[in-house]
């Protein structure tokens, strides 16, 4: 059917006849994509073997063979597809297939890391929120693990829907949901780039570079709210672009924009803020360009809608987010200011109880950042030199400048966290700008013509690319991807392995899980626990208990946890916090905490442990009158403090 939409339903200045011309050539076949999928699948098998070897090793880091297989897997999943995307030959359909293969391949690497349960820190927090929804059939049940989580329940709602309708576990439902979200992200991103004026080649390269952001491999693959919110936000950008160029009749356009923006806001706070920021930037770019005589329409209504929905949600439901994000931003700002005054910078690639990455990995990481910075400079120059900017391209160009700015934040502890979190947003712009530099003739061709001009996949008159390009461009993409992977996760966490002290996924093991299950079965739910960082995750998500920490409960019980004796002061602290039980894990005294803390941030003066916690500290509850040692599994003990704290 080729019915043309009524003119009244489209933008008045957009020739209706051009609407279908700009659509990517998705009618074409998958081309080399099946072969690339097969190679990627072999890469996944290599990664699976790497996990087996790593799990058999008692070391902190994986054995060399496992490491080689790890890098081989990354290479097989990403490089053949990346090389094909650089080619001028594939049509739109093949490029999309390849991008989906790479996107899903990288997601499956995360799933193969722990194929039977969620083990990442944030995942436990959202598992608890999902369980609360399934238990009560209601939203907004307070979470003792991440109080802000129930206020942004998009991920949990979707997962709970699949669990309820299928009878599957939260793990399976969440994994399937995030796989679908990954497809939504990759396809939306590619179509967005195409829609705002990029060629299919540029869009493919840009989406590939996006997938090289350090958070793509693990962080936004985990069961956490940003992993669903970012696909929603990119989807929102795509439907806003469609609206700006009049692809959809008014009703459909508004439905899509409204749904995408609202879902983003409900799912994750920072992603909502980033979406508003980009839409505002897009709007400002359009206004500036309009003053310079370039016809460009600002996405004012979507930006206003995003702002209103976000403000309304914060006021009505999620006011807690101000207290949640505020301290993190303030701490980062303070640390950056301290850095400018000559304070010592954070040591990169290190953790207190774990080894650094190999030298060659650090070199690759830095070279990849350098390649990105050079690519950015070159891409910005190409965009600037060609002129005739469209508003979204100008917005992306300005947005990409956030990347070098974010690198400065990596030199401080808090700034590094914010910089990490910003990467999935910043790379939307970085990917496009760097790709514009790599595909400059084609980008220029579309940038100097009206935004709805047809896009050619191939330019027969162009001939073969220059030889230096055929070497430099693939090398640059490989370097950028390798850098992103090297920066994605600490060397001790990217593969599973033997138990490590306070090392999040490496500390999740059967004894802790069994202890948490025992509390759920024997003690009832929502008992207030003093418990270390890792067992807190298990007690909260599996045991359905209430682990008490300073940042959420506004009480500081860690002084009692770290005190060498249980005196009057400690008993008062525990009593004021209405503590019911304490769980101790003797393994904590065997090594330094890999993530830097045993209990919570700020637990040690100077910020860094230099020797492990003393065994006596953990054993101080033994032999105290009226403190029953009710559970013992060797490493883990649970003490009943209720009689003591009720006095």
């Amino acid at each position: 059917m080729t019915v043309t939409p009524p003119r009244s339903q489209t933008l008045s200045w957009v020739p209706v006849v051009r609407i279908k011309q700009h659509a990517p050539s998705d009618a074409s076949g998958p081309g080399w994509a099946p072969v690339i999928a097969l190679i990627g699948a072999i890469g996944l098998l290599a990664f699976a073997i790497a996990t087996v070897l790593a799990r058999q090793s008692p070391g902190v880091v994986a054995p060399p063979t496992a490491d080689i297989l790890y890098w081989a897997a990354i290479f097989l999943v990403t490089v053949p597809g990346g090389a094909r995307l650089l080619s001028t030959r594939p049509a739109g359909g093949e490029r999309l297939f390849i991008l989906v293969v790479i996107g899903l391949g990288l997601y499956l690497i995360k799933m193969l890391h722990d194929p039977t349960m969620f083990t990442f820190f944030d995942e436990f927090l959202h598992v608890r929120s999902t369980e609360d929804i399934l238990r009560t059939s209601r939203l907004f049940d307070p979470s003792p693990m991440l109080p802000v989580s129930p206020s942004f329940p998009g991920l949990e709602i979707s997962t709970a829907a699949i669990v309820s309708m299928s009878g599957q576990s939260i793990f399976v439902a969440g994994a399937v949901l995030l796989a679908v979200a990954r497809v939504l992200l990759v396809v939306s991103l590619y179509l967005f780039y195409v829609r705002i004026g990029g060629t299919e080649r540029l869009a493919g390269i840009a989406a590939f570079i996006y997938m090289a952001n350090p958070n793509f491999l693990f962080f936004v693959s985990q069961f956490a709210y940003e992993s669903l919110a970012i696909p929603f936000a990119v989807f929102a950008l795509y439907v806003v672009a469609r609206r700006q160029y009049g692809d959809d009749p008014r009703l459909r356009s508004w439905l899509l924009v409204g749904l995408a923006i609202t879902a983003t806001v409900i799912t994750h706070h920072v992603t909502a803020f980033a979406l508003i920021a980009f839409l505002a930037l897009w709007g400002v770019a359009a206004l500036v360009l309009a003053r310079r005589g370039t016809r460009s329409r600002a996405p004012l209504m979507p930006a206003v809608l995003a702002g209103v929905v976000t403000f309304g949600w914060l006021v009505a439901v999620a006011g807690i987010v101000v207290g949640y994000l505020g301290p993190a931003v303030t701490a980062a700002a303070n640390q950056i200011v301290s850095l400018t005054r000559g304070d010592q910078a954070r040591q990169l690639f290190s953790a207190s109880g774990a080894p650094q990455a190999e030298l060659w990995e650090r070199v690759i990481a830095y070279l990849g950042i350098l390649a990105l910075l050079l690519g950015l400079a070159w891409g910005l120059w190409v965009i600037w030199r060609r002129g005739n900017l469209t508003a979204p391209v100008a917005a992306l160009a300005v947005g990409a400048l956030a990347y070098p700015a974010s690198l400065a934040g990596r030199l401080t502890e808090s700034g590094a966290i914010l910089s990490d979190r910003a990467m999935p947003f910043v790379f939307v712009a970085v990917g496009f700008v760097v790709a514009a530099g790599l595909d400059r003739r084609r980008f220029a061709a579309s940038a100097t013509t009206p935004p709805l001009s047809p896009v050619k996949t191939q330019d027969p008159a162009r001939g073969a690319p220059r030889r230096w390009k055929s070497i430099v461009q693939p090398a640059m993409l490989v370097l950028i991807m390798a850098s992103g992977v090297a920066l994605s996760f600490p060397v001790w966490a990217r593969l599973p392995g033997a138990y490590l002290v306070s090392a999040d996924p490496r500390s999740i093991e059967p004894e802790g899980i069994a202890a948490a299950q025992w509390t759920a079965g024997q003690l009832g739910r929502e008992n207030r626990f003093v418990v270390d960082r890792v067992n807190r995750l298990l007690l909260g998500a599996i045991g359905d208990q209430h682990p008490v920490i300073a940042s959420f409960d506004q009480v500081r019980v860690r002084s009692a946890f770290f005190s060498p004796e249980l005196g009057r002061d400690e008993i008062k602290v525990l009593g004021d916090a209405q503590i019911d039980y304490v769980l101790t894990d003797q393994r904590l005294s065997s090594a330094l905490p890999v993530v830097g803390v045993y209990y919570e941030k700020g637990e040690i003066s100077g910020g860094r442990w230099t020797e492990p916690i003393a065994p006596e500290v953990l054993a101080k509850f033994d032999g105290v009158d009226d403190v029953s040692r009710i559970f013992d599994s060797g490493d883990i003990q649970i003490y009943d403090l209720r009689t003591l704290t009720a006095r």
Partner: protein
Amino acid sequence: MSPSVRNEVLAISVVASVGALAAVASGIDPTVRLVLALPLVVFVPGYALIRAAAPAAPLSPVAGFVLALGASMALTVLGGLFLQVTPAGMTSASWADLLFLISMFSAIVLAWRSRHLVPDSGPRGPSVVDLVRSGERRTIAVYGSLFLASAVIVVAAFGVAIYGFDNQPRPGFSQLWILPAGDQATATIGIDNDEGQAIDVALTLTLGSTVEAEWPSINLADGARWQETAVVPGFATGDQPLVATLTRVGFPDSVYRYVTLWPSAQLPTSS
């Protein structure tokens, strides 16, 4: 209504109905339910809605796919907010009802708004059947084989990873626990064996220097639980803890686990 719209409405109705039925049916394997119900969460309502919103504006396959996907997933999130204010809340039935009704209502609107659309008489792209007949059979077979081989390898990769998880060397452990059992003179004692093998253990229950009860040999298979309720008359009125000590048979002098219970201990909130 054109034949293509009629087919769309029919497809929406069938997939939504099957998904909704699978969601509320009992006795069906969860994996089968997932396969049948997932489209109702991530595709069908969104597809029906965007088609109903503009029946006269067709979408390319890729755009239609991604718009349906995004709209459906967003609808599910908003649907959760809607169910929050209904008496039923979020249950399998309410989810199935809501997503089914959105899909069917949109399909009806699509049918109604398409009733005057003229069927497309222009050239249409080749279907898979056409491609097979026209000699593309070999290409399709090659593509299909490659994708199938990829899927098989991915499944094998998960098999290998799960094997590695299940066979990771880990120290075994046993749990010993003690809890008050309602009456102040009684306590429940339990042992759970997660050593990865059967164990033979001895348990002694003492109050002060008095042995109140003794189990000299408890054989526990891997994964098994042993549980007893012990009555200790002097416990409730005394001021000493009840101590349960676990030793491995053959190593009587080496305490393997121990737990204590004071007379003042309260019942767990679960009791």
